[in-house]
């Protein structure tokens, strides 16, 4: 965000536990703030701050949506490996018959011979063959990491939303204060 507004007096330093996103100051005494900083200036600064918070909120929401998609994917993969494992531990020797998507809208039948391993795609053009238990363990770990990350994101988002609310209420109060002041001294000043 390229605005140069000095926001140092509307926020408290930096909240380190939330990526250094600053915490907005709740105006205890609107009158005092307005006398010191003037209405227009205060509103401008709060608006700039508000936009920053909204920017962060959008960013974190995107990350959250990504994780919310990833978690069920990993769960489904674990299910598949478990299904294979169940079959390989059973005394049925015939191969598993499947129908899978070969290409877009094309399904073919395939047989999976009894086996005790699967290959996991690790990314970066690497694929490694694992025993079923090991594969499940690895996937489970990935799942846990994703779930912890989601929890953290949730807490950052809650923090940001609190800041959005405080900023909005601050703005409204400054605005209302100004309206009231103007009403108190009507045409007299003109």
């Amino acid at each position, binding site marked *: 965000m390229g605005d140069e507004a000095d926001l140092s007096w509307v926020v408290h330093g930096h909240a380190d536990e939330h990526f250094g996103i600053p915490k907005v100051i*709740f105006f*205890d005494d609107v009158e005092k703030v307005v006398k010191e900083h003037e209405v227009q200036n205060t509103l401008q600064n709060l608006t700039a701050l508000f936009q920053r918070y909204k920017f962060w909120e959008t960013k974190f929401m995107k990350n959250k949506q990504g994780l919310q998609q990833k978690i069920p994917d990993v769960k*489904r*993969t674990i*299910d*598949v490996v478990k*299904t294979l494992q169940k079959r390989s531990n059973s005394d049925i020797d015939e191969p*598993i*018959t*499947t*129908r*899978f*998507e070969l290409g877009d809208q094309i*399904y073919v039948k395939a047989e999976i011979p009894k086996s005790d391993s699967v290959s996991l795609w690790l990314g970066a053009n690497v694929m490694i063959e694992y025993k079923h238990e090991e594969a499940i363990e690895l996937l489970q770990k990935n799942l846990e990491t994703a779930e912890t990350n989601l929890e953290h994101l949730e807490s950052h988002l*809650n923090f940001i*939303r*609190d800041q*959005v*609310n*405080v900023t*909005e*209420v601050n703005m*409204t*109060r400054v*605005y*209302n*204060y100004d*309206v*009231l002041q103007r*009403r108190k001294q009507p045409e007299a000043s003109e």
Partner: protein
Amino acid sequence: MSGMLKKEDESEKNVTLEDQQKINQFSRLLNEKLELQAFLSVRKDLHQLYDDASDELMLAADNEKVQFAVGDAFIFTAKDEAEETVEQCKTEIVRTMEDSQKKYDNKVESMTQLKTELYAKFGNSINLEEEA
């Protein structure tokens, strides 16, 4: 956003830090409530799907293998095995739904409490209703 004071209100009550915290709390609860609502509706659809699946399975011939979706592929599965899996999935879904429903009810209760408190102080100058 709800929780915002209406502009142009003449008799402004002083907003204290405590009031602000209540507003923040309310907004969090609202968010969580909406998320749970979405979650529950997805589970409900899923439950319906499994219900349909078990109905279909009942109609299938006993010696017929069914194609059961696992991951992105379908596995030819014995009928009784498929039935068992469907039942397990159903139980699991019912459990998570009950769990989420409880959480949902708790949120609604806390929200009602906060609403009472905030409306008592701010009356019409605050709007805590969800937009339709």
